[in-house]
């Protein structure tokens, strides 16, 4: 809310902040990426890590001298617990894998039974068709007075003809 005599303090603050951020940002950029800073930071981290390692070893030594469980002992026990848990999970993996195999085998078995049933149905249908054909071809036994006697032997001969051979072939 700037007036002719009074500047907008909020805007002014924002501007100041932007300038400060830009200046600080570029200064920090130079510092944080300079080889001197990175080298010193690396050395500092290295020393801190070594000091931490030495401190933990000395605490372990002290605890051991007092015949108390050390941090390493606790870590060892936790590792054993984790290892046992991992073995249990491996067993669970195996059981689930076997379950998957059984399900797959059951699927295969059901599929095989379906296929066998389908084959039987097909066979039955073929048999029924053959019976029907046989019924059509079946001719009653010839009698002396029957007028069709002359044709009967030829039909029987056709029936006896070898399969796949056409008449006259």
């Amino acid at each position: 809310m700037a007036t002719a005599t009074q500047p907008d303090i909020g805007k002014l603050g924002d501007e100041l902040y932007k300038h400060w951020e830009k200046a600080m940002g570029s200064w920090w950029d130079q510092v944080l990426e300079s080889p001197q800073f990175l080298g010193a930071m690396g050395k500092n981290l290295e020393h801190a890590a070594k000091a931490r390692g030495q401190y933990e070893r000395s605490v372990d030594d002290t605890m051991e001298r007092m015949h108390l469980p050390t941090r390493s002992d606790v870590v060892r026990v936790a590792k054993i617990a984790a290892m046992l848990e991992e073995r249990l999970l491996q067993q669970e993996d195996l059981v689930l894998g076997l379950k998957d195999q059984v399900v797959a085998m059951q699927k295969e078995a059901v599929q095989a039974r379906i296929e066998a049933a389908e084959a039987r149905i097909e066979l039955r249908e073929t048999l029924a068709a053959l019976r029907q054909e046989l019924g059509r071809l079946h001719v009653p036994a010839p009698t002396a007075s029957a007028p069709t006697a002359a044709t009967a032997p030829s039909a029987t001969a056709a029936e006896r003809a070898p399969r796949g051979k056409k008449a006259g072939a």
Partner: protein
Amino acid sequence: MMVAAIAEKVETLRWLAADPVATAETGRTPHRVVFRDHKACVRYFAPAVATRPPLFCVMPLINTWTVFDLAPGRSVVEALTAAGVPVYVLDWGRAGPEDADTPMAHYVDTVLGRCLDRAVRHAGVEKIDVLGYCVGGTFLAVHLARAGAGTEGSRCPVRRAFFLATPIDFHQSGRLARWARPESFPLDAIVDGFGNFPKELMQDSFRWLRPTGVAAKYKSVLDRGGDPEFRRLWAALERWNGDGVDFPGATYREYVRQCYFDNALVGGGWIMDGTPVTLAQATVPATTVAASDDHIVPTAAAHALRGVWGGPVTTRVLGGGHVGVCAGAKLPAAIVEWLDA
């Protein structure tokens, strides 16, 4: 008007003085744990009615999973379940000193693979869509590559992958990449001395990536602190930020050496547990999403997946920073759009 603005700022300062971060609660969306593997677990967020395929999310090992569930109305999992997506979240848990020797292969191959398997079984599907965020995305990419996801004969139950702010070309990771160089970063001494990489060091290094970030943070809260919604989100983000997790030592050693020192996901030559890590071995379709203002994983570092992945890759940029992207409404919308595609 000016008096009112000053009064609001004073009130915001009072609110800050009352330490709202200590009482901020994250991870409040109802869910249950469906599987545990040592410290890791799979958290299941059930939708009222599942209308979309399930999603398995891999969170970063260095933070808690609650970045996906910051506050009501600002939660990725809440928005996804509301959209009918059954969500599974892999929470790595908190590494302790007993995990210092655990190699990266254990996390990438065994734990991730097992959690994925149990999520798939729980969801009752044959294949699942997966999402990885930040380091979680890198771990997921390595897992999918090692499992040959999408290739014929692979048993990896993954259909598609969504990588969010996931570094692939680590040499494009800005200041972090320039810091993590073998000549200036004493990796072995740190891991040998500390065991696990301490969360305090991790948080400090992230803080120093943007030295004026702390000032910017408090300026934003003074500027917008009058909005209760902003306050709630700010406190939740601060809570999450301060709740770091130690990086298991042996895993950290391999991760920094291979990814930051050698940039092996791009350049190759990474042998993990006797097997090479080659991202081209994964052929499932992938989408990689970068955040526009991400100073930890810049767009170039994330989108580099396109050059090394074995399957088709779609790239996208969402507005926001590395963490802020998880607090907005754009991310859940982008995930749902991807799930529907």
